[in-house]
């Protein structure tokens, strides 16, 4: 294939805060770097840049973005890095044998005009995360989106993708999105939190004790004040339960919810809106790492299946490193520091720095990471939806698998019919849940919890869907080797 003879010291997959920070360090030590990312511009989801040619004054000026933004400004479009933007890594295969590049990896990549393979001595995966979906009745209606999806339109496209918005979930991100919507001139009909106000306030008081993060918390407090001034109703202790509309979203229903996830449907209320943004946390995008053979472990509140790694962020596969959210969802500031430590780990593994130098270089990022992690853990605690909420909102006829249009009840009947099934992958084979174009990203979490609850299994036994190349669907006509020029 055309890319066969292209070899790099380091391939970085995903160029959000972690990938950017890692690239900077690797380049400072003179190793060659190729960066591959599905988006057209660097920054990841948190810093989703406007298209080339757009000029946006005061773009993402808030303090929340300060640290990753400074890394982006240093690295973006630097010409000592080989940028493969708009390209997707479909799979990673190990190189074995006695060739010089043995022990490294082959990356199978879909580029703009075809597919190719390139080789790297070490790979650093930082593909980030995506929103953890809640499968309530009506969640498949056009107009229901992830809160991050709405934010993507705002940050990058400078586009308000609807008229009257409701945000609902458990994550503080929805406050940020609501604020950005309001300042873009949209109407926000309500921001609905599953947590009670008392619980949120308690967590905040704890957070203020971690003084370094005071500025971030004050920023959030300012956002709340701004939303109140704009007359946006904030509602606590309530969950979205239904979305309705003829062909597209017209109204949503929310109802009080307890900390254990019991919903008081008798006190449900309806709000008219044409867009709903949902935000109940994030799932680590660990598919590529798993496809490459890296082992994972379950972390309910830090991204689901996250990749096992050592103190240098090397996964169970030699010379395959991970950074950012797939090493445990903890936000952009943590991602930057993880990217730095992982990059130093890469340098160490490739013999570019000595053991002692690696330890010295890693000291400051490690210290920062430890500090940020304490704050992230607190934020994660604060952002948790009520226990079992995912199951209490999912009615018998809610769509569990969007792609294959399979309802919860149908899936559970399959489980009843096949009492020997214990793994999610085996459940997929009998039910088709997870067999569509999203490759199970939007149903795996809910299906796994259903299976675990039905069979009284822990997540380790349920296990994730087997991740297989290509980890993103690719049309057959895009498979031929990429044409040069």
């Amino acid at each position, binding site marked *: 294939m055309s890319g066969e003879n292209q070899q790099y010291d380091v391939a970085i997959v995903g160029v959000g805060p972690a990938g950017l920070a890692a690239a900077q360090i690797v380049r400072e030590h003179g190793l060659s770097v190729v960066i591959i990312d599905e988006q057209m511009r660097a920054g990841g989801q948190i810093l989703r840049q406007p298209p080339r040619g757009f000029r946006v004054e005061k773009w993402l000026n808030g303090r929340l973005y300060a640290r990753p933004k400074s890394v982006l400004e240093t690295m973006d479009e630097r010409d000592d890095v080989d940028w493969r933007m708009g390209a997707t890594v479909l799979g990673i295969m190990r190189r074995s044998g006695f060739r010089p590049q043995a022990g490294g990896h082959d990356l199978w990549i879909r580029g703009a005009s075809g597919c190719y393979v390139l080789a790297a001595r070490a790979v650093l995966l930082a593909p980030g995360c995506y929103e953890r979906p809640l499968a309530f009745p009506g969640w498949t209606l056009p107009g229901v989106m992830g809160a991050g999806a709405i934010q993507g339109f705002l940050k990058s496209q400078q586009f308000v993708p609807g008229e009257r918005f409701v945000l609902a979930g458990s994550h503080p991100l929805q406050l940020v999105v609501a604020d950005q919507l309001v300042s873009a001139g949209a109407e926000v009909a309500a921001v609905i939190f599953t947590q009670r106000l008392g619980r949120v306030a308690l967590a905040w008081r704890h957070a203020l004790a971690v003084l370094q993060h005071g500025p971030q918390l004050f920023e959030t407090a300012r956002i709340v004040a701004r939303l109140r001034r704009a007359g946006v109703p904030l509602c606590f202790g309530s969950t979205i339960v239904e979305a309705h509309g003829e062909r597209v979203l017209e109204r949503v229903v929310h109802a009080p919810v307890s900390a254990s996830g019991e919903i008081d449907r008798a006190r449900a209320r309806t709000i008219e809106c044409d867009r709903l943004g949902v935000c109940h946390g994030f799932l680590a995008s660990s598919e590529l790492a798993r496809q490459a053979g890296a082992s994972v472990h379950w972390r309910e509140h830090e991204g689901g299946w996250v990749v096992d790694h050592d103190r240098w962020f090397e996964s169970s596969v030699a010379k395959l490193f991970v950074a950012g959210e797939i090493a445990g969802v903890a936000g952009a500031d943590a991602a930057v520091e993880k990217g730095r430590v992982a990059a130093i780990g890469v340098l160490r593994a490739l013999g570019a720095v000595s053991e002692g130098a690696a330890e010295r270089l890693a000291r400051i990022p490690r210290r920062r990471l430890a500090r940020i992690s304490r704050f992230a853990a607190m934020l994660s605690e604060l952002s948790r939806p009520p226990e079992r909420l995912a199951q209490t909102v999912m009615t018998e006829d809610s769509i569990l698998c969007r792609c294959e249009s399979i309802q919860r009840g149908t899936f559970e009947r399959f489980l009843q019919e096949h009492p020997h099934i214990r793994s999610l992958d*085996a459940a997929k084979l*009998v039910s088709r849940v997870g067999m569509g174009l999203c490759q199970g990203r939007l149903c795996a979490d809910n299906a796994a919890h259903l299976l675990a609850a039905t069979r009284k299994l822990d997540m380790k036994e349920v296990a994730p869907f*087997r991740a297989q190349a290509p980890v993103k669907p690719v049309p057959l006509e895009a498979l031929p080797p990429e044409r040069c020029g």
Partner: protein
Amino acid sequence: MNRFDVVVLGGGLVGCAAAHYLSRSGARVLLVERSDLNREASGRNAGSLHFQLEYRLIRYGEALAAQFAQIIPLSLVAIEDWLKLEAELEAQLEVEMGGGLIVAEGPGDLEMLEKRQVLQERWGLDTKLLSANEVRRLAPYLTDTVIAASYCAKEGHANPRLVAPAFARSAARHGCEIRCGTRVTSLERDGSEWCVGIESGDRKEGISAGAVLNAAGAWAGEIAAMAHLHLPIYAIPLIMNVLERREPLIPHLVQHASKRLTLKQLAVGNVLIGGGWPGRFVRQGHAPDLWRAEPVVEHITENLLLASRLVPAIGSLHLLRTWTGITGVTADQMPLLGEVPEAPGFYVAAGGAAFTHGPTYARLISELILNGRTSVPIDLYSPARFSHVNNFMAAV
């Protein structure tokens, strides 16, 4: 010690089907599976019901092809078995026997089809050689480089996801005990009884059995080794690809005369593409890990480009997933089906085309275990033909 009439090792298609036939006849059966049912080749193969001689059987010269053609009598039985299977199991298996085509694109291909035709006629398989125009009428979705095809009206496909689980459900209804997540740790013989050591998590147990059926597919050799026996079966990792759904287009099983290809469209609309392109075992230190394989990018690409060249309409469809199913091939490509002469009471059913022929293997081996004879002769496939490799083994 818990006693069963038969312990079946392996929860794939053959094991589940044998458990069904045995327990339906009143035998007390234990089915032991190391992970989940239908997890390996049985659930991950192409689901082809191919009765014509496959490319892998025809490519090694005429003498060997003539020898491999001895599988056709078993295919004729399998055709009848598949026609009855959904009714017998009262289950939807997506059995579609709408015909199968082996297509030729050049004179060399055509010559191979003609030789196939002679062998298939000799053994009584009803197939027909179609001209380019006849192919066009029957299969307008094929590209116009196809100049001829060999057609078998009984070929088709079934859904591998559904078949073994349906057998397992029926077996369970007939009282079969199924233990998943359970490994075999030892096999010992005491007179006419077998003692099977099994282990599940921390729990260890010895099971007494009148007979043991080795239905461990690619790993049947590992199981046999526990009884100090050789079975010449080798694990091979084969690549399969599935495309997203589309409207009905391809009612046939499509194969190629001289290239590795099987192509079919499932009832729900997905297109399944394989044909024997190998993946690669992942290495664990120096040795390959025979339980874990990864695909080879060049093979996926060639397989799919061949498919989309033959059926241009699938070019815009997304490849959803590829996987590498680990199956077993015997030293002479024929199945291992029968009692191992060196170890009375130790039976094997593995190798060959174990999806197409799987239900039939299971039915016949169950007859052999229960009655000591079969309704259809299976001597040709007996492990007795490899007795020479066990001549110097001290079987238990």
